[in-house]
């Protein structure tokens, strides 16, 4: 893909300087000139981005653009080869996803977030089960767990009658919602969502997008990774376009329309060529 200048009214790709000028708050998460190479393969080149609290930051990219590598750096699975990762302005290095989680960075993976045969509330508290009782003899506070789970899900606008049902019986969107609610409840300040809508139908995607907005309104910095510019535009505040391991564009919500985003993402000229080739009207 060559330089992505959409035809028509050109959006002004804001430079990093312009972006930081508007941001008076300290970003919850920030990458500064991060590169990552695996042997001779340069997976990410000079990535600089920032995630503000209470906003949705979308990272858009086609297959092979480096989205997965970016997620893994943000969530502590990989460490950058060069450059810095800053959490609330402090440079940090994470040795494991557990450490990133400890710093308030939670990642919801598409299919690896829940155990299908376990009940909803047991999944919700998995790994962080509330306990009561004396030292040495502690048991699950299941009444409190159920109560909290119900309240937290309601706060996200999801009403499940039966928290005892295996989570595998929920739809894909609802499972994502439970995973998001869980991350929010356990104090995530940055929530990384890995293609949360890619396997879902139109309505289900809408449900997940609603929860993304809910999380944002609770003051969380959401990183929404997707290859769907329509979904991104509906909830996003800032958009980064990732292509072949580098950021090619950065847009603010106010200065970009959905069509521009779609074109920038697909590479405007290429899309038109494709439309022509297919004999489409538009």
């Amino acid at each position, binding site marked *: 893909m060559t330089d992505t200048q959409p035809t028509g009214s050109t959006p002004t790709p804001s430079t990093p300087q312009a972006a930081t000028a508007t941001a008076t708050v300290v970003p919850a998460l920030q990458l500064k000139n991060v590169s990552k190479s695996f042997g001779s393969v340069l997976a990410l080149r000079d990535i600089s981005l920032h995630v503000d609290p209470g906003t949705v930051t979308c990272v858009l990219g086609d297959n092979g653009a480096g989205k997965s590598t970016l997620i893994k750096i943000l969530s502590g699975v990989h460490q950058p080869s060069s450059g810095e990762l800053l959490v609330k302005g402090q440079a940090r290095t994470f040795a494991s996803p557990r450490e990133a989680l400890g710093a308030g960075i939670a990642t919801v993976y598409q299919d690896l977030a829940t155990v*299908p*045969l376990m009940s909803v509330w047991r999944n919700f508290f998995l790994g962080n089960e509330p306990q009561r009782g004396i030292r040495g003899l502690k048991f699950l506070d299941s009444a409190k767990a159920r109560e909290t789970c119900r309240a937290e899900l309601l706060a996200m606008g999801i009403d499940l009658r039966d928290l005892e049902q295996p989570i595998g*019986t929920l739809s894909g969107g609802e499972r994502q919602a439970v995973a998001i609610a869980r991350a929010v409840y356990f104090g995530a300040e940055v929530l990384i969502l890995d293609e949360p809508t890619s396997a879902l139908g139109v309505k289900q995607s809408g449900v997940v997008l609603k929860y993304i907005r809910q999380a944002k309104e609770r003051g969380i910095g959401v990183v929404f990774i997707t290859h769907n510019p329509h979904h991104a535009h509906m909830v996003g505040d800032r958009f980064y376009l990732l292509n072949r391991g580098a950021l090619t564009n950065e847009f603010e919500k106010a200065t970009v329309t959905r069509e521009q985003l779609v074109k920038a993402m697909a590479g405007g000229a290429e899309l038109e060529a494709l439309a022509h080739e297919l004999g489409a009207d538009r």
Partner: protein
Amino acid sequence: MTTPPAKVDERIVQASRLTRLLRRPELGALIGAVVVYTLFAVSDRTGTFATITGTANWTDAASVVGIVAIPVALLMIAGEFDLSSGVLVGSSGLLCGMLATQYHLGIWPSIILTFVFAAAIGLINGWLVMLTGLPSFIVTLAMFFSLRGINLGLTKVLTDTVRVAGVDKADGFASAQAVFASTFWAPYNFKIAVIWWLVVTVIATFVLTKTRFGNWIYAVGGDSNAARNTGVPVRRTKITLFVTTSLAAALLGVIDVIRFKSMQAGQGVGEEFTYIIAAVVGGCLLTGGFGSAIGATIGASIIGMAFIGIAFAGWNTDWTFLFLGVILFAAVLVNTFIGRRAQGAKK
């Protein structure tokens, strides 16, 4: 945008009591137990099966299965097998007997060392499975054959026979007998092993349903990746369960050696499958993530009833294993069917 009012999806039917009941893993086993009990009560020719004496008989046969079957069930819920559990019963009994008779350690120190030995075997099983990433089926099968060889070889070297005898001459045998091999409820003489069985059932059920560790057992068996991602210590959970299973095998070995005052080198071989049958009949999924301790206890009861009931019915006891095979298949069929109905056709 404010919080949207929670909408109730009209397609979600309120889970009825029946659905909740069908979701229990042990339901199929319970139905099976009632059927089997009725069958043997009707075909009984001695007139004792359905009496308290008969109950004392079949609970004895069930207890020696259940004590190990319950931890085997927990391990299966966590997604792992232990095929060495049967032969380890023999190894533990032999070791305990040899320490007491050949090395004159006294029965209680022998028992303690036996438990330490069993814990080490469990630790080796667990570590090997976790470190090599090989299926536990293979790792514990190797342990099964290794122990089987050691049992026979070492017993022959040390005693020149294939059994250890004379355990009752060890120091403190009377007190150990009171704990591991006495009877209660005078005219009917229930074996104390039944109490051990019930204790193991209660502890396992409590751990499984009411503790954090129990939650982890289901999680590591259901989806170990998801469990790891949410911060569950997968390795520690599984290794702990391997050790628990070995300790239960040692408990049964000690019970056996004290009850019979001797131990055969071949004791316990083949029993590992009986434990697995009890767990599976009780509703445990072979693939992990689903099952219960009470289910395994009911499964053990069915096996106990079959062993005693077939003899009481005057049938040739050679047919016992055929019966177990049929029961296993039928129970799994029923469990899968109701499981599928209750789960909404998803795994």
